[in-house]
């Protein structure tokens, strides 16, 4: 009997005794559990709880941190507010295990175990679409990366900078060329106090101690007005205390990290240096590169804390930026960039990037994100493109079509059954009447 039409028995005494079910193997039990529709319901409930608490947490912590904590993690302690001053930590699984289990549940129960009959065709199609969507999400999470490319009009560039991730770069020059080695920001982000994280590299005649890492700070002249919690270098220190520099920006995009470095050569510690990363924010295209320079092993080196960078395999030139406003207002109606792709060995290719119309080129997608006045040339603009490399870029769109077709077919079929049943019932009533 279909569960949807089953009615519970009101009288337990009329229930027929059932034969004991045959014992199932542990493997079979696991398979049944993974294929269970009840597991689907539980996972949906957990994901809904996670989404709801994560959404409300964004008002306090901003989107980036909540995304990391709730939706890209294996588990977390969610602070559930029970009043103005009362929050209770509640353990929750992160979205990674929940979505992973959901994917397995979908494959085993929703596709493999489902009867491949005509009446299930719509649901099977929809399940395939959802599986494709989940795979697209996984590919995006594990393979893709994104950043921004900010260009003043007339400028050429190929360096993408991450919005949120930092890295520590060691620079040196050989001839006319500048070489660099980088270390992910995650390696040094825990060195928030005086105890340093020591960095070494093959072939390097020195080590680097990183300490006092601060996710958001600003350099300030040390005065008698405040007590510095960080070392003072040449009268300047990095201040991250919100009481002194104001509340930190909620979004990590707008935070400026800083740290202290010390070179250790032959067991001796050198002078202390201070690194700060106000580097090319989208709104700060004219910021100069100022690595902290030092000498070791008879050569000059530089250290730079910056947003993580990637290089495109070709150059992009911003030929012109155009914006228009609704008449008599300052409200943007449209802003767009005319660019040229400059690829070695190919003819220059002109393209027009504007809102809702990105440029797709060799796996990279360029979106019109922002713009502003060029600080060096009055009357000119700079344009910022978000650049993403995502192999699953188009998969969600395909999955949408697949799911839509599947659900539409299934529900039309169900609706026709429902209408037929209602007509039958009404007809029977009229005959009786």
């Amino acid at each position, binding site marked *: 009997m279909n569960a949807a039409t089953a009615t519970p028995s009101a*009288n337990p005494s009329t229930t027929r005794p059932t034969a004991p079910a045959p014992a199932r193997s542990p493997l079979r039990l696991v398979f049944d559990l993974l294929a269970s529709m009840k597991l689907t319901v539980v996972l949906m409930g957990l994901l809904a709880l996670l*989404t709801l608490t994560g959404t409300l947490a964004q008002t306090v912590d901003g989107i980036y941190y909540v995304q990391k904590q709730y939706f890209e993690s294996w588990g977390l302690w969610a602070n559930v507010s029970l009043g103005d001053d009362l929050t209770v930590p509640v353990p929750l699984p992160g979205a990674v295990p929940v979505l992973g289990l959901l994917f397995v549940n979908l494959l085993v129960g929703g596709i493999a175990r489902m009867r491949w009959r005509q009446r299930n065709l719509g649901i099977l199609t929809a399940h395939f679409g959802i599986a494709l969507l989940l795979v697209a999400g996984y590919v995006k999470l594990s393979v893709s990366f994104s950043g921004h490319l900010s260009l003043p009009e007339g400028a050429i560039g190929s360096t993408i900078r991450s919005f949120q991730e930092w890295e520590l770069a060691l620079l040196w020059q050989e001839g006319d060329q500048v070489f660099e080695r980088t270390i992910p920001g995650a390696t040094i982000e825990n060195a928030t106090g005086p105890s340093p994280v020591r960095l070494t590299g093959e072939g390097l005649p020195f080590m680097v101690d990183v300490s006092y890492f601060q996710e958001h700070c600003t350099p300030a002249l040390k005065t008698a007005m405040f007590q510095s919690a960080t070392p003072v270098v040449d009268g300047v220190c990095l201040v991250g205390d919100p009481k002194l520099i104001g509340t930190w920006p*909620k979004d990590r995009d707008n935070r400026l990290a800083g740290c202290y470095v010390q070179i250790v050569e032959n067991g001796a510690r050198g002078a202390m240096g201070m690194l700060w990363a106000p580097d090319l924010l989208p709104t700060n295209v004219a910021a100069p590169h100022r690595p902290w320079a030092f000498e070791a092993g008879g050569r000059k080196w530089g250290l730079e804390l910056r947003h993580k960078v990637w290089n495109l395999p070709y150059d992009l030139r911003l030929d012109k930026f155009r914006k228009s406003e609704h008449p008599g207002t300052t*409200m943007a109606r449209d802003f767009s960039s005319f660019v040229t792709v400059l690829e070695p060995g190919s003819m220059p290719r002109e393209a027009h990037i504007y809102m809702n119309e*990105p440029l797709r080129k060799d796996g990279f997608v360029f979106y019109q994100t922002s713009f502003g006045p060029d600080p060096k040339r009055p009357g000119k603009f700079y344009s910022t493109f978000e650049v993403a490399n995502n192999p699953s870029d188009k998969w*969600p769109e395909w999955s949408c079509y697949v799911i839509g077709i599947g659900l539409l077919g299934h529900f039309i079929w169900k609706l026709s059954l429902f209408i037929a049943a209602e007509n039958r019932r009404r007809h029977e009533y009229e005959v009786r009447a």
Partner: protein
Amino acid sequence: MRLSWIPFLLLLSTACSRPVPTVNADARQRPVAWSPAAIEAARSIPLQHEGRVKPFDTLAAFTLYLVHGRRDMQFTFGGPDANWDGKPKNVLTPTEWLLDVWCFPEQANQYPLFRIENAKALDFLFPDEAHAQQQDFVYVSYRKLVEPVAPDRPTPIARLMQQVRELRARQAVKDMEYDEQALVHLHDQFFTYNTLVRTVESLHMPYLLKGDRLQALFGGKGRATYAEVLGKARDVATLAGYLRSLPEAERGTGVMIADELKMLGEEEDSGPALFVPPPAAAPGDHTPDHEKWFQLGDLARLALAGQLQEKQQQQLAALEEVATAESMPARERAILAFRELAVAAAGQRGEFEKVDLEAKYYAWSLHYHALHWFLPGFLAVALSWVLMPFNRRLTSLAGWVAFAFTTIGLGYLTADLVLRCLITERPPIKNLYDTFLFICAIGVAAALVAELITRLRVALAVAPFLGAVLIMLARVFEVSDGSDTMRQLQAVLDSNYWLATHVTTINMGYAAGMLAMLIADVWLLLRAFRVAERNQAFLKTIVRMTYGVTCFGLLFTVVGTILGGVWANDSWGRFWGWDPKENGALLICLAQVALLHGRLCGWFRDFTFSLLAGVTGMLVAFSWFHVNLLNVGLHSYGFSTGLKSAVFTFYGIQTLLLVIGVLGHLARSLSIVRRVDNPAGTDAGGAWRPGAASADPR
């Protein structure tokens, strides 16, 4: 020198203690009411405001919403020369009010205009007045804000400006305390009105002509109107060049007038533009020079450059007559003349057709008519339920009447939506306000279809109820938001393709979620109060209806949500960003998928299924409105503070209904236990006959 040029700024200074100077003292008070013909003509005068060409009445109505909290202006005028039309209480339509503001500013500035609800804001503005006994809100006139409360003390508005400047320097408005936000809101309301007042202020202030040469230019007159001065602007500028070489005492007012015209021409003003530029040289020319209509200051710039065209001069002369004529008949004739000129000029640019349609749209007020049909429709279906045990024929008749009324209401609502699409040349949903009307139409239509299939009069009861509630909420939102509901779109939203696909489908999903919630609520209440307890088939069909509507909703929420991600991928470079608006849509999908799977696997029987369908309705409200209150994420164009209390009221009512359902279920479970002890039962005389309800032919 102008006799009185914008003394407002002086009033704002703390040192200032002068009242607002009198303007055009001969015509300060309107002697009689505006004639219906003048009002009708003025309603559809085209003007450009906030980036689009709209009717005079639309500007007036939404300004009133914003600053006054109502669409009309009601007041009892005091003083010796009050009650010019002999009525103790005056009610002005938006058009009449704006005509007063532009033609009789002295009078309009005394209207009880600014609605102040916050007691602390009131105490801040008028610390010496006792406000302890105040009601929910107080209306304060413009004049009361700009006049000093005592000699040598700053005006209330000067103190408010100072306070708001400090508050804004300290933090963003969304992070402020409630009372501080109220001050900022009042400050913004004041400047909205002030901008409107200033639109034609120059017309009320004739120029004082001093100096022989200057007077000779104007035929020996001692004063000249704005239109007259613009007519000779280049001569005045040339004369000013010569006068500058003379000692200051011999210059007269020529230099000052020339300087003021130049300054007016350079001013950027966000107020409405009333003067139509000539048609674009080339069709489809969207350069700002051709799109932007002219304000009085622009005319000064054009006049100084010798580019003021005859049609614009004629418009200016007509408007000056509207604002300053001695008699009401003369003013009203000037209104007709000004409208004729504006309509002809706008028509040449192809910009009047939609204005006329918009004026008619607001006059017809179709969705308000729909409300008038939904309410009796609901009463009729309620009557059919009451009559059911007594008279089958009357029951059937009342049911058909309810169906007819609701269908007519839906027709009005559909016509309303179609008109909005025609006026804006956009799909039905452009902003939050549109979602009310669209969700209302889809919800009512789906309920009527469900009724045609099931014939239970349950969906028929829900349809007009849903329609009436959503239309009333739309009205409340329109007033509380106070912004043009056909306003221009942000650049990111400027895509008819995505508005027609993603936005439409996701809102169809919202409509289905709301409808399923209401049907589930009916089931819970019927069960809780033991109505139709003996008719399980009837109750089963209601649950099946909830199931069917949830299926309908799932299709649209899933497709709508994914389409939203695809749009986000094309605009922002990522398919999914766990943004609150995205999460809200995902929550509905998850809840609906859980509902259907729980039902299929036998976990969710009728009670649990209905209960969770009710919870899903609350998630729809969360996604539809609550996430806009959070002020987080990339969907900033949808942020809103309107209807905050309505959202929480809805949560409260829905929770109450669910609690009643749970209590009813618990009580029923206990009674089943008792009935097992006494299987014969004693309640066989229920209102419903077993097996009959689902096939009730009405």
